[in-house]
C-alpha cells in the first residue's frame, strides 16, 4: 500500500531504483535492508516536512538524504575497508613467518633462507614459463605436421623416408592402419590439446605473477616496517610519547628552549 500521492510515489520509487542500481555489487540481503531503511526514512522525513506542496516536500527530503551515489559511496568505502581487513589475515601469517625467520638465533640464517626462497621461487617461475612455451611450440608444430599429413601426403612420406619424421613401436603400427586424412586429423586434434595446455599455462601465469609480486611486496613491506620500528626505538628517547596525556605534554616554550628537541610528530 502506498503512503504517498501518486506523483510523489513515482519520485520515491525512482530514487530507490537509482540507489538499487548503485548497490548492485552488494549482497541481495544488504540491498534489500538498505532500501527498506531508506524507504522508511523517506516516509518519516516526508511526514515531518509538512509545510509545502507534496512534490516540493519530497524533493527537499531527497535533497537532504543525498544523491544515491553519495549514500552508496559510504557503503563502498566500508566494503573496501573490509576487503583490506581480509587481506591482512594472510599478510599477518606471512609476516609472522618472515619475522620468525629473522628471529632465528643463527644471525643471517633468516636472510639466507629468504634469499633461498626467492631463488626457488624464481626457478619455479622460469620452469613454469619454459614448460608453457614448450607445450605451445610443440602443439603448433604438431598441428602443422597433422595438416601436412592431410593436405600433402607425398611430402610427409618424403620426410618420413628422409628420417625427419619417425614413428616407432605400437604408435607407428597403429598409424599405418589409418588413412593419411585420419592420421592428420588425429595429429591435429592431439597437438591442439597440447597447444591449448600451453596457452592455458600462459594465461594462468598472469595470476601467478600477480601472486608472486604480492608475496614479494609483502615480504619487503614487513622487512621495512620491522627495521623501521627497531630504528625508531633505537633513536627515539621516549617511545611512549603517544601515550603522554596532552595535559602533561611539555609546553612549546620548553621544547623551543631545549633547541635540540626531537618531535616525532613530523
Amino acid at each position, binding site marked *: 500500500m502506498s*503512503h504517498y500521492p501518486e506523483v510523489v510515489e513515482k519520485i520515491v520509487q525512482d530514487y530507490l531504483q537509482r540507489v538499487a542500481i548503485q548497490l548492485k555489487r552488494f549482497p541481495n540481503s*544488504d540491498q534489500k*535492508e*538498505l532500501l*527498506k*531503511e*531508506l*524507504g*522508511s*526514512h523517506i*516516509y*518519516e*522525513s516526508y*511526514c*515531518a516536512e509538512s509545510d509545502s506542496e507534496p512534490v516540493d516536500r519530497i524533493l527537499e527530503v531527497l535533497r*537532504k*538524504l*543525498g*544523491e544515491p551515489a*553519495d*549514500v*552508496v559511496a*559510504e*557503503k563502498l*568505502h*566500508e566494503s573496501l575497508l573490509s576487503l583490506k581487513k581480509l587481506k591482512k589475515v594472510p599478510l599477518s601469517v606471512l609476516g609472522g613467518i618472515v619475522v620468525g625467520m629473522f628471529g632465528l638465533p643463527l644471525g643471517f640464517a633468516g636472510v639466507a633462507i629468504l634469499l633461498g626462497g626467492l631463488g626457488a621461487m624464481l626457478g619455479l617461475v622460469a620452469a613454469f614459463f619454459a614448460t608453457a612455451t614448450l607445450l605451445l611450440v610443440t602443439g603448433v608444430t604438431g598441428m602443422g605436421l597433422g595438416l601436412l599429413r592431410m593436405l600433402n601426403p607425398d611430402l610427409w612420406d618424403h620426410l618420413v623416408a628422409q628420417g625427419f619424421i619417425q614413428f616407432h613401436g605400437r604408435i607407428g603400427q597403429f598409424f599405418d592402419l589409418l588413412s593419411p586424412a585420419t592420421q592428420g586429423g588425429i595429429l591435429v586434434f592431439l597437438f591442439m590439446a597440447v597447444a591449448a595446455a600451453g596457452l592455458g599455462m600462459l594465461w594462468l601465469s598472469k595470476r601467478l605473477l600477480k601472486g608472486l609480486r604480492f608475496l614479494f611486496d609483502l615480504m619487503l613491506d614487513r622487512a621495512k616496517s620491522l627495521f623501521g620500528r627497531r630504528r625508531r626505538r633505537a633513536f627515539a628517547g621516549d617511545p611512549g610519547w603517544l601515550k603522554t*596525556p*596532552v*595535559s602533561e*605534554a611539555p*609546553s*612549546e616554550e620548553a621544547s*623551543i*628552549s631545549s*633547541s635540540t628537541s626531537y618531535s616525532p610528530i613530523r
Partner: protein
Amino acid sequence: MDYLDAEKERRVTQLRKGILELAIMGSLYRQQHYGYSLVRVLTGDGSLLLKEGTVYPILTRLDKEGLVRSEWVESDQGPPRKYYSLTANGRKIFESLMPEFDQLVSLVKQSRNGAKSRQDQPLGERILVKREEKG
C-alpha cells in the same frame, strides 16, 4: 566557489566523516533510535550538517561489527522502523573512545594556542630562538 572555499568544504567533510561514527555511538549510548530520529538528533541544532543517507551504511557496519543491535518494529503511522541500540561491547568501545577524542581535541586546541602565542612574540625574539635552534 573559489579554491579556498572548495578546499575548506572538502576538509570539513572529512572531519565530519571522522566524528560521525562517534557521534552516532554517542546518541545511541543515551537511548535507542530509529534511523530518522537518529538523524534528527545528530542534525538537530544545526551543528552537524550531513547528507542524511550517509548514516545508514555506518549503522550497518556497526551492526555487523556487533557494536549496535537492530530490530524492525512495526509502526502504526507508516512503514516499519529499524531501531538501533548500543550493545554492551559497543558501550565499552564508546567509553574507551571518548577520552581519546577529548585528548585529540585538547591536542588541536593546544597546538593552535601555542602557535598563536609564538606569533605574538616580537620578531627579534623569534629570530633569536631560531638561531638557538640551529646552533
